[in-house]
C-alpha cells in the first residue's frame, strides 16, 4: 500500500495506529515474564533477555519499562517516579506512554499503587507484599568498575570470584579514608551474587533487605533482568572496621513538610544563596504536607 493511502485510511478511521495492549507483542511479553521468573529463582543473577526497542530512548528506562509492560494488567494502578519525583520529566513521559497503551489508572501515592516504576529511588514508605517495585537500571554489572569485559565478569560471577571488588573497596579506603562510592552501592544478594542495586542512594539500600515487596530490575540497553524476591537477605559490601554508611543529613530537614528522616535534595536558594533541603520523594512529602489526604 502506498504511504499516502495508508495515511488517508488512518485519517478516515479517526484513530491513531492501534497498538497491542501494553505496546509489546505477546511473544515479547511472554519471553520477558519467563526471564523474570528465572531472575526470581536465582536472586541477584543477571538474566540476559532480548531487549526490544521502545518509543522511549535506551538509557531512559526501557528495561524497567519492558518489565512493567510485560506484567501490567488492566486492573493495575501505576506510579512512576524519577529520582523520587512523580512530576519529573522522565516519569511524566513514561507514565503518559504506559497510560496511552494500557489505559490503567495512575497515582502518586505509594500505597495506592500496585506497580511502581522507579529511576534512582525506592519510595520512603515501606511497600507491601501486594506491590511490585520495578527499577530502571543503567549499568546492571556491579563488577564493571573493576572489569570492562562481559565475558570476564560472567566468569567472575559464576565462580563467585569477587576478590577484585573487595580489593577495590580496600584501596578506596587507603586512598580516601572512606569508601567513596556514592550511589549504586554494590550489595550481596542471598549470600551469593554481588548485585548492582541501580543508582539508588545508599539511603535506600537497607530497604532492599528482607523486604515484603518484590524488586525487579531491568536494564534495556544492556539487555539484563534481575530480581530481589521478598524476604531475601541483601547486604551492602562492608568491612568489620569500615561499615557501610548512608548519606548524612544531620541537622537538615525538608523545607516543605519538615521531615528530618527522609532522603533530601539539596537546593541552593536563588536569593540568599543558602543551602536548603527538600524531600526527594515528592509523593511522601505531599502526604506529610497535607496536600493529599
Amino acid at each position: 500500500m502506498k504511504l499516502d493511502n495508508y495515511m488517508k485510511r488512518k485519517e478516515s478511521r479517526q484513530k491513531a495506529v492501534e497498538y497491542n495492549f501494553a505496546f509489546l507483542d505477546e511473544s515479547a511479553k511472554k519471553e520477558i515474564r519467563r526471564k523474570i521468573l528465572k531472575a526470581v529463582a536465582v536472586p541477584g543473577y543477571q538474566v540476559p533477555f532480548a531487549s526490544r526497542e521502545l518509543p522511549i530512548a535506551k538509557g531512559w528506562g526501557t528495561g524497567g519499562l519492558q518489565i512493567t509492560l510485560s506484567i501490567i494488567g488492566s486492573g493495575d494502578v501505576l506510579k512512576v517516579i524519577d529520582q523520587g519525583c512523580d512530576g519529573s520529566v522522565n516519569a511524566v513521559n513514561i507514565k503518559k506512554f504506559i497510560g496511552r497503551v494500557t489505559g490503567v489508572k495512575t497515582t502518586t501515592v505509594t500505597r495506592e499503587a500496585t506497580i511502581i516504576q522507579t529511576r534512582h529511588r525506592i519510595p520512603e514508605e515501606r511497600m507491601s507484599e501486594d506491590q511490585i517495585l520495578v527499577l530502571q537500571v543503567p549499568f546492571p554489572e556491579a563488577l564493571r568498575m573493576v572489569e570492562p569485559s562481559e565475558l570476564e565478569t560472567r566468569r567472575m560471577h559464576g565462580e563467585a570470584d569477587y576478590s577484585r571488588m573487595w580489593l577495590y573497596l580496600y584501596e578506596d579506603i587507603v586512598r580516601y579514608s572512606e569508601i567513596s562510592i556514592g550511589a549504586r552501592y554494590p550489595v550481596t544478594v542471598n549470600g551469593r551474587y554481588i548485585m548492582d542495586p541501580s543508582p539508588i542512594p545508599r539511603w535506600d539500600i537497607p530497604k532492599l533487605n528482607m523486604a515484603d515487596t518484590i524488586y525487579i530490575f531491568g536494564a534495556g540497553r544492556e539487555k539484563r533482568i534481575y530480581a530481589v524476591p521478598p524476604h531475601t537477605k541483601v547486604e551492602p559490601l562492608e568491612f568489620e572496621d569500615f561499615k557501610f554508611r548512608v548519606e548524612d543529613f544531620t541537622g537538615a530537614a525538608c523545607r516543605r513538610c519538615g521531615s528530618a528522616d527522609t532522603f533530601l535534595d539539596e537546593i541552593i536558594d536563588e536569593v540568599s544563596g543558602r543551602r536548603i533541603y527538600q524531600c526527594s520523594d515528592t509523593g511522601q512529602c505531599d502526604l506529610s504536607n497535607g496536600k493529599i489526604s
Partner: protein
Amino acid sequence: MGYVAVKGGTEAIENAAKLLYYERIKGGTRPLKADQIREQLYLAVDRVMGEGSLYAPDLAALAIKQSAGDTFEASFMLRAYRATKPRVGYSIPQATTEIKVVRRISAAFKDIPGGQILGPTSDYTLRLLDFELLNDNQKTRKSYINNLFKGLRDVGPLPESFPRVIEIMRKEGLLTERAGNSGLDISGIYDVTRQSLTFPAGRSATLQSMARGETGGLLLLAYSNMRGYGDIHPTVGELRVGYVPVRIKHPYTSELYTVGEVKITEAEVIAKFTANDGSPKFTLGYGLCFGHNETKAISMAILDRAMQTEGKRMPSEDQEFVLSHIDGIDALGFCAHWKLPHYVTFQSDLDRLRKTRESDNLCGRGKAGIEK
C-alpha cells in the same frame, strides 16, 4: 554555580513537543512528502532501514520526515515500530549469486566473470556544488532523461546470476575455509532480535549485530584498524549492490514462495594472514546490509575479518568491544540520557566528597580512616 531541583514539568514537556512540531513547519516552503524523501533522499532511507533493522522504505521515509532528517532519530523510530510486530517466521537463506545487480565491482581483478558494472556511484564525481540544482524542476529533469537515453543502443539484459569473484581463489585453495551453514538449514542461526548477545558471539550473531549497526560507528572502528591500530590491509574482492528475493517456506505445504525483494549492499574483503603451519593464506571478511550503503558494508567486512584475528590486541579486533558499541540506537539513547536529572546520585556523590574531605582534614591524606 548553583543547581535547581526542577519539580514538575508535565506542561513544559507537552509544550516542548509542540514547539518541536512547529519548528519543522514554521517555514514558508511546501510540505515535504514522504514519497519525495523515498525517491530523492533514497540513501538516507536506505541507511535508516539498515540501522533501524526494518526493510520498509515508506516508513523509513516517514521517519526521516518526522525526525527532520536526523538519521539516528529516524532509525530509532523504525526500531520502535518494529518492536510492536510479532516474529511470524524466518525467510529462507538466499544465495547472493541470484542478485539483480545495480552495481558490482572488484578491486582484486580487472576482468571478472560477468564484468565490472559501475552503476550509479559518486566515487568518481567531483564533489563540486552543482548550482544548477537550485533550478531543479520537472522540465530540466525530463530533458536530462531524454538526453540520457537518446540514441542509446539496445543492450541485452543483464545475466540472472553472477558468479562470485572469490570463487576463483577458492578453487585454487588460496582461501582458508570456515565451517558454516549451508542450504536451507537455519536451525543454527542466532536471532539477535530475540536473544541477547553473549560472548563469545557466534558468526551469525556477529554479522546480524553489524548489519543493524550505525554506519559511522562501524566506519570509525574499521578505519582505526586499517589506519594502523590493527593490521588488516583489505582488498575489496567484490562489492555488490542489487536486489535479492525474499523467500519463505509455506508452513503446511513447505513450498517456497517469493514474497518480495530487498535492496542490499554486499562486500567481501580479502586479507592475507599466515596460518599456524607458516603458509600464507587469504581470509575473507564479509559485510551485508540493507539498502545502498557501501561504506557500511565494507566497514562491516573489515571488522568481520579483524575480529577473527588471533591474539586480539586492538579495539577493532575485540569482538565484545566492537559488538557492544556499534548500535546507534543503544548509543544515542545512553548519550542522551545524561540530560535527565541526576539529583539523587549527585547528592550521594556530594555526600561522599564532603565526608572524604572531612576525613582528610582530620587525619591527613593517605592515612587509615577513623570510625566516627
